[in-house]
C-alpha cells in the first residue's frame, strides 16, 4: 500500500539521525573506551589486551577509596538536595500564586545561567578566610578572628548541592504541579494532620519526581569536577579528578579509560539499586517531565 511505504520511509528518515547520534556519539565511543581500558601498556608504544588496568585499579586502595568516597558524598549531596529542594518545590508548585510560579522557577534556574567555574568562583569569594562571609561574621562580632570556610568537605557539599539543586527542583515541581490540589484538601478533610498529608499523600505522589531528580542529581554530582576540586580541602579527592589526572597529568589513557568505565558501572549500579528500591523505571521517571 502507498501509505505503508510512506510510513516506512518516514520511520527510516526519523531513525537515521537518531541512530547516527546515539551510535556515533554514545555507543561506539563507549565501546571504544571499554576496549581502550582493556589495553595494557607493556613498554612505550607496545600494548596487549588484558584486565591489567582494572586489576591495578582494584589493587590500589586509594582509587577504591576515592570511588567510595565520591559515591558516599554524592549520596549525601543527593539526600541534602532533596531535603532542601522539596519544600521549595512544594512552595512553587502548590503554595505560590499562579503568577509568581514561573518567576520563582526561573529564579531556581539561576545557577544554570553560569558555568560551574563562575559558581565555584563565587563560593571562593564568599567563603575564603578573607572572604565576605568571614568578614560579615567578624563585623557582626560573631567570631573573634577570620574563619576559613573553604577547603573542607562541608564546603564541597554546600557547593555541590548548590550546583545540582535545580535538577531536583524541576522534576519535583513538574510532578507536584500535576497533583490536584483537591488531593491535599481531601487529605485534610478526612482528618489528616499536616504531617500525615505530607507523608501519606504528597510524598508518595511525588515519588516519580523524587526518583528522577535523585538519579540526575546523583549522576551529576558523581560526575562533577570543578566544584570538588576548587572548593575541596587537602584530603578531598573526587573520582573524576582521578580520571582527569590519568588522562591529563599522567597521559595514561588506558588506565583513565578503566577508571571511567568503573565509575560508570559503579554509579549505574547505585542508580539501579535505587530504582529497584523505589519500584520505578529509568525511562518512565527520567523522561516524565
Amino acid at each position, binding site marked *: 500500500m502507498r501509505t505503508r511505504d510512506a510510513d516506512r520511509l518516514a520511520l527510516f528518515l526519523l531513525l537515521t539521525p537518531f541512530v547516527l547520534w546515539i551510535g556515533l556519539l554514545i555507543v561506539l565511543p563507549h565501546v571504544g573506551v571499554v576496549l581502550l581500558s582493556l589495553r595494557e601498556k607493556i613498554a612505550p*608504544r607496545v600494548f596487549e589486551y588484558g584486565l591489567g588496568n582494572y586489576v591495578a585499579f582494584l589493587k590500589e586502595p*586509594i582509587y577504591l577509596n576515592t570511588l567510595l568516597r565520591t559515591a558516599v558524598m554524592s549520596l549525601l549531596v543527593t539526600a541534602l538536595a532533596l531535603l532542601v529542594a522539596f519544600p521549595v518545590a512544594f512552595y512553587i508548585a502548590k503554595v505560590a500564586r499562579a503568577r509568581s510560579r514561573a518567576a520563582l522557577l526561573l529564579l531556581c534556574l539561576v545557577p544554570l545561567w553560569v558555568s560551574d567555574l563562575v559558581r565555584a568562583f563565587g563560593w571562593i569569594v564568599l567563603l*575564603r578566610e578573607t572572604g565576605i562571609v568571614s568578614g560579615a561574621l567578624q563585623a557582626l562580632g560573631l567570631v573573634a578572628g577570620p574563619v576559613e570556610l573553604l577547603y573542607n568537605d562541608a564546603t564541597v557539599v554546600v557547593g555541590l548541592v548548590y550546583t545540582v539543586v535545580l535538577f531536583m527542583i524541576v522534576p519535583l515541581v513538574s510532578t507536584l504541579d500535576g497533583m490536584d490540589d483537591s488531593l491535599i484538601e481531601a487529605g485534610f478533610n478526612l482528618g489528616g494532620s499536616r504531617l500525615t498529608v505530607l507523608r501519606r499523600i504528597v510524598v508518595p505522589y511525588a515519588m516519580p519526581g523524587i526518583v528522577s531528580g535523585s538519579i540526575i542529581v546523583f549522576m551529576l554530582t558523581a560526575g562533577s569536577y570543578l566544584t570538588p576540586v576548587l572548593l575541596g*580541602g*587537602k*584530603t578531598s*579527592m573526587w573520582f573524576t579528578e582521578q580520571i582527569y589526572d590519568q588522562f591529563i597529568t599522567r*597521559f*595514561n589513557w588506558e588506565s583513565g579509560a578503566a577508571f571511567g568505565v568503573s565509575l560508570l558501572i559503579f554509579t549505574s549500579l547505585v542508580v539501579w539499586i535505587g530504582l529497584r528500591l523505589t519500584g520505578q523505571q529509568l525511562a518512565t521517571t527520567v523522561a516524565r517531565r
Partner: protein
Amino acid sequence: ETLRLLTWGGYASDEVIKAFEKEYSDIKVEVTLSNNEEMIAKLRATGGSGFDLAQPGFNRIKAAHVEFDIYKPLDLSKIETGRFDPIMLNRVVASTSIDGKVYAVPHLWGTSGIMVDKTKAPDLKDWLDLCDPKYKGRTSMRLARTILVGSAFAMGEDPYAAYGDLKKYQEIMSKVADRLIACKDNVKAYWRGGDDLSAMMLSGEAVASDTWDSTTFKIFAQNKNIVYVPPKSGAVGWIDSFALPKKGRADDAAYKWINFVTRPEIAALMGAKTGAVTAVKGGIDVMPADKKEAIKAAFTDADIANIKWAAVIQPGVEDIEGKTLERIKAATAK
C-alpha cells in the same frame, strides 16, 4: 597564517604578540595556556597536531616523545643559536637529542623554591620548613613533582641520581610521601594555580609556600615583604623550551617566533612580564631593574651554584611520582 602556541600563562603576553604581529603582519598568533603535564596530554590527544609550537620543560620532552611520538626535530640552522646562553643551550640540546636529532632549544629558565612573607615567617629557609609546626595551617604547597623533588633533596637524598633506578626512586618517594603526609596538618591548602597562591599570600592567609621564583617576583611588586627564598638544600632549576609538535603546520612562523622572542629587547619584555630569566646571553642583565634587583636579592652566587637543575625524566618516573602525589592527596592528615 596562524601560529598556534601551546605555552604557559604569561609567556606570550599581548604586548609581545602585538609586537610580533606588527612585524610579521601575515601571521596571527593564537595562544593556548597550559602546563607541563597538559602540554603532553594535549599533544598526545592530537597526535602532535593542533599546535605549531610548544613550550614544555626541557626535561620532559624525551620521555614523552619516546612514548607518544609527538614532536619533530628542530632545524637548528633556522634558529639564531648564537644568541643563546651556551650553557643553557647545551643543557637543553643534550637532554633532548634522540638519535642525533635535536628536539628543543631553551627559552626561559628559573627556579622553584620557597616564597615567604618575611615579616611573618622570618626563619623559613628550606623545603621542609614548610612543615614547621610554628606555621601550622599557614603554609601551602603545590602537589606536583617539584615539592617531591625538593623534599627529597631536603631529606638528603638525590632523586635525580635515582631516575635511572626506578626501585631506588620509588623508595625515596615513599619516604617523601610519609614525610609530606605527616606534614599535611601544617598545610592550609594545596594551591593549584598562581591565582590561588597569590590570593592566599597577599591576603595573609598563608605565610609561605613552595613556588616558582618568577611568581614570587610578580607578587613582590605588590608586597615587598613577600620574597623568594632559595631553599638551603637547593632550589630546583627548570628550563622551559621550544619544541615543534609533530604535525605543526606553521614551522616557519614558529622559527620566526623563536628568533623574535630571543631578541634582547623582547627578552627584556618577557622577563619583565614573567619574572623568569631568558636563556639568552646575559639573560639576567636584560631584565628590568626591579626584577634584576629581586633576583639579586634572592640569590647569592652560592645559591646559584646550588641550583639542582632538573634531570631528564625517564619513562616510569612520572608514574611513580603520580602515585606518590595521589597518596599524599588522599591520605588523611594525622
